[in-house]
């Protein structure tokens, strides 16, 4: 059944490719950074002559353009790099491998307007945000620890999971509806230290793309966004070291050629040392406490020959929290990706990936009476085969993907003396497979399409006992499924469609529709990401979550693409959303699916974005007006209610001022409406204590949040090889007490009454970091 679908898709594909195939010649190659040999993702290759055409390099820096025989001018450009212009006689299939010089090595003037790109206007892709790793370095962050997840929260349509938190919500989606991938491997828990830092060490990151909508068909598995993070490949020309020493963490990165111009490696390490301060305490139970995390990113690539390049990358991270003789908690992700780029011919590029990733945690209670160790694991094996076919006006992308999931919800291990019993919750096995095809079609100078379809299949597999529950949570039936047998299958067809219409080179409108489905769900009652978040697969009870999103946008560039202006509106329908019953017990509960409620959601909003890309002063202003609601029969009398992350207004302003060659100042400002929360409407006495009476769900609002952060970077004098810089930052310069939590207490001024007491997390926090490079 599934196979037949795949075959149907492929026959469709090859049928269409044969129509487009014509007798023309192909210009193809790889674009790299001249200094490091890193491939450049999304560089523009424009060719003009008898006809004009343009394309972008793919994730591996590869491009291909097919044109009729003739003489052409080829311009290769990339933001922040000097363009290369060449004349090419296209009389046969031709290779063009170019290396671009970074603007760092050039005068400001030479970065002329012709490499200011207008892809944001031109491409049919909507809802895409790319993070410039250079500006990331200067944006102020908590404790000076630069962080991609905190930086994307400054973009319109992306909301922070909470103060200082790396969790995020995209266009009304929940925190578990973001597909976060690092070199294609899913990172299940992307936070360190209870969410205050992310697992992504910015030193090791090359490129970050966030899709808020219009996800291309090669991505699937989560509803609301795709955060595609790619690691640095490493310098293939010379050995380089860089690092930094900050208030809470230090970083060191080494990179260099394995074989010059053919292969390189990169290793990056980061560790916090808050607990070193604890260790200095004279008190034995304080200095025996741990509070740290570390992560290691490593990558190597080797160009076997002109047609084959192999990449191996991995991530390993761990958090450790512990209080002596009381408890220990550690958690972390492991990812490994092996990839083979193969160029079949100038037009057909393929990538084969084998991916392993896991997330695990351990909790140990060391108390003598409640002594136990609890462990949990989510583990995936993933195979991906992706093809890109570059035709004259089409770029086709098609492939297959199969992931095997294994979830060990919780194993509790305790000894005889412990009052907690040992327990092994049944493992769950699932296979997610998908086939997709998409086509980027430049119809003419005005019209571009990006359309495709993804067939997503999910199978919940044995072995195991699978129960089906009624609405009250009683077991209706339990099926024992043998190992390797299918218990439940779901098939979903996910159409993806985007179109752009260019009025001229600086003005366009775009529209998109896409469907996404999700079969791995997080069960959590916590606001922020918690190390003990529990993962469940779709089952008889939990149906695949489905989101349909339509979006419409206007894009305009001004002053030769120096300024970007855009406005997007979207509407999203969500199905099979999950919430929890009253008094739900989620942890270590083999009947956890009996504690769930299922409902629908809707989210809609408008995002405005204004960005100045070049010059001494650059930065952006983002504004989001949005609403996100959920509806469950059992909650709020079956009426729609605002989701917790529903915040009406969100404003972010980022400014970076390059005052001199040595001094850079930057600041960011955020304002957001408070979270939707449930406040008591009444109170009563029960069990001799006060209890609160609630009416409408999430009808109240937390106070608004507002924060101004600033930082300054001083570049050291440029010496021959060695370079260093100081970064000074102040988080929350206004020392505003932003709301983190509210609790209800006896009014201190009027003991007969009740008062709401707000807790804030961070006051004004200064930071200092020293960075070096040689």
């Amino acid at each position, binding site marked *: 059944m599934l196979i037949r679908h795949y075959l149907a898709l492929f026959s469709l594909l090859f049928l269409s490719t044969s129509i487009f195939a014509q007798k023309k010649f192909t210009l193809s190659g790889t674009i790299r950074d001249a200094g490091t040999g890193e491939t450049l993702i999304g560089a523009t290759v424009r060719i003009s002559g008898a006809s004009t055409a343009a394309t972008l390099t793919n994730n591996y820096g590869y491009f291909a353009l097919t044109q009729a025989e003739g003489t052409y001018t080829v311009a290769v450009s990339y933001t922040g790099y000097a363009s290369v212009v060449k004349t090419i006689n296209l009389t046969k299939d031709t290779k063009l491998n170019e290396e671009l010089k970074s603007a760092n090595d050039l005068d400001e003037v030479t970065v002329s307007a012709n490499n200011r790109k207008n892809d944001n206007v031109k491409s049919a892709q909507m809802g895409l945000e790319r993070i410039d790793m250079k500006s990331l370095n200067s944006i102020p962050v908590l404790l000076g620890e630069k962080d991609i997840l905190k930086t994307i929260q400054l973009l319109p349509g992306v909301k922070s999971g909470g103060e200082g938190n790396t969790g995020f919500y995209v266009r009304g989606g929940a925190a578990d509806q973001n597909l976060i991938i690092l070199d294609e491997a899913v990172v299940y828990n992307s936070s360190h230290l209870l969410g205050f830092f992310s697992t992504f060490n910015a030193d090791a990151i090359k490129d970050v793309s966030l899709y808020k909508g219009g996800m291309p068909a090669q991505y699937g598995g989560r509803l609301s966004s795709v955060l595609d993070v790619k690691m640095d490949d490493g310098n293939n020309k010379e050995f380089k070291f860089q690092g930094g020493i900050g208030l809470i963490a230090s970083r060191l990165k080494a990179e260099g050629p394995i074989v010059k111009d053919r292969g390189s490696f990169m290793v990056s390490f980061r560790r916090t040392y808050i607990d070193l301060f604890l260790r200095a305490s004279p008190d034995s*139970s304080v200095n025996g406490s741990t509070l740290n995390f570390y992560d290691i990113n490593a990558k190597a690539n080797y160009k076997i020959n002109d047609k084959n390049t192999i990449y191996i990358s991995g991530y390993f991270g761990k958090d450790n929290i512990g209080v002596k003789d009381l408890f220990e908690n550690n958690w972390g992700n492991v990812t490994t990706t092996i990839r083979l780029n193969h160029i079949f011919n100038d037009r057909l590029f393929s990538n084969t990936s084998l991916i392993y990733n896991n997330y695990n945690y351990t909790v140990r209670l060391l108390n003598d009476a409640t002594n136990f160790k609890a462990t949990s694991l989510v583990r995936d094996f993933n195979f991906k085969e992706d093809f890109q076919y570059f035709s004259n006006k089409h770029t086709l992308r098609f492939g297959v993907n199969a992931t095997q999931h294994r979830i060990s919800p919780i194993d509790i291990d305790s000894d005889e003396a412990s009052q907690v*019993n040992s327990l092994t919750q049944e493992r769950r096995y699932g296979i997610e497979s998908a086939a997709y095809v998409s086509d980027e079609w430049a119809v003419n100078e005005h019209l571009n399409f990006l359309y495709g379809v993804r067939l997503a299949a999910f199978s919940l597999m044995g072995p195991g006992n699978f129960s089906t529950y009624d609405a009250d949570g009683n077991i209706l039936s339990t099926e024992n499924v043998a190992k390797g047998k299918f218990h439940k299958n779901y098939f979903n067809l996910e159409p993806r469609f985007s179109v752009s219409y260019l009025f001229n080179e600086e003005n366009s409108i775009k529209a998109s529709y896409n469907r996404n489905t999700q079969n791995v769900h997080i069960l959590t*009652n916590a606001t922020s990401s*918690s190390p003990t978040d529990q993962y469940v697969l779709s089952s008889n009870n939990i149906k695949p979550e489905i989101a349909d999103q339509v979006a419409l946008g206007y894009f305009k560039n001004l002053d030769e693409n120096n300024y970007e202006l855009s406005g997007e509106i979207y509407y999203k329908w969500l199905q099979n959303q999950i919430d929890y019953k009253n008094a739900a017990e989620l942890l270590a509960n083999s009947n956890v699916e009996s504690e769930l409620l299922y409902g629908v959601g809707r989210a809609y909003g408008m995002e405005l974005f204004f960005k100045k890309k070049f010059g001494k002063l650059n930065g952006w202003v983002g504004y989001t007006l949005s609403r996100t609601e959920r509806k469950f029969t059992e909650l709020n009398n079956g009426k729609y209610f605002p989701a917790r992350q529903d915040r009406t207004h969100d404003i972010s302003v980022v400014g970076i001022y390059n005052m001199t060659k040595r001094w850079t100042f930057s600041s960011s400002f955020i304002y957001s409406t408070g979270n939707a929360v449930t406040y008591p409407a009444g109170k009563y006495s029960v069990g001799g204590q006060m209890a609160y009476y609630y009416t409408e769900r999430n009808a109240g609002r937390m106070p608004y949040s507002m924060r101004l952060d600033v930082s300054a970077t001083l570049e050291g004098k440029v010496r021959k090889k060695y370079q260093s810089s100081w970064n000074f930052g102040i988080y929350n310069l206004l020392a505003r007490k932003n709301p983190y939590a509210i609790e209800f207490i*006896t009014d201190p001024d009027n003991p007969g009454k009740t008062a709401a007491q707000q807790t804030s997390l961070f*006051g004004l926090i200064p930071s200092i970091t020293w960075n070096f490079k040689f």
Partner: protein
Amino acid sequence: MKKLVIYFSLFAFCLTGCKKIIEIDTENADPQLVIEGRINDSLIDQQIKISKTIGYTETNVFPKVSGASVTVTDSKGNTFVFKEGSTSGTYINKMKGVPGVTYNLNVTAEGQTYTASSKMPNVVKMDSIGVINNFFFGRERKTAAVFFKDPANETNFYHFNLYVNDVLSERFYVNNDRLTNGNDLRIQLFFNPPTNDHDSDELNANDKIKIEMECIDSNIFDYWYALSQQSNRGPNQGTTPANPTSNISNQALGYFSANTYQVLSATVK
């Protein structure tokens, strides 16, 4: 445990004052009927209390509901009529509940009828109570604890009340044996005094502690558990607050519990 970690982060990061009183925007709800009924296994004046909610901003005086008709029938065919005693809104009947018997409540108040039922579980013997010394970041902290053996052959639910020098601790203590079935249990009850002064949550030498232990049915466990998940934690942290599911019909707030009752006292050394 998680809370502890959060406190720790607060301790580490919060350099300035982190708490302040704020105004919240909420509308006072119309009064709702609250029924709180308990039948235990001692021969005493069993009490069914009927009151009303007040608005969030009002002063904490909860109106009593007089003139209701309150009866309890049991699964053995007995009927007990509860009469309003000297305290208005409190309906009493001197009787003794029996484990294994189901009790049905029938209340008619202000023209509306409310019903509920609860089965009294078997008694699990409370062995002793005591004080445990914990060390939190180098600070010794004494905690009251109750000791008993959970029976292996049945599912058990427990509810506790802690009094320190006759002051009721403002926290809902509730346990089940889902992860601890059949074991010798030592349950710690962290004291939460009804004042805002968090320094007074310590137990000191010569404090008198009293612990009440009730074996409750599963509905009542859910009721107390839902409250315990919310108590002292406002919105935006953990579970979205909601009214706990009551076992009483017709949308009354409160609960009707047939439970066993034991109490022990001790003095902190």
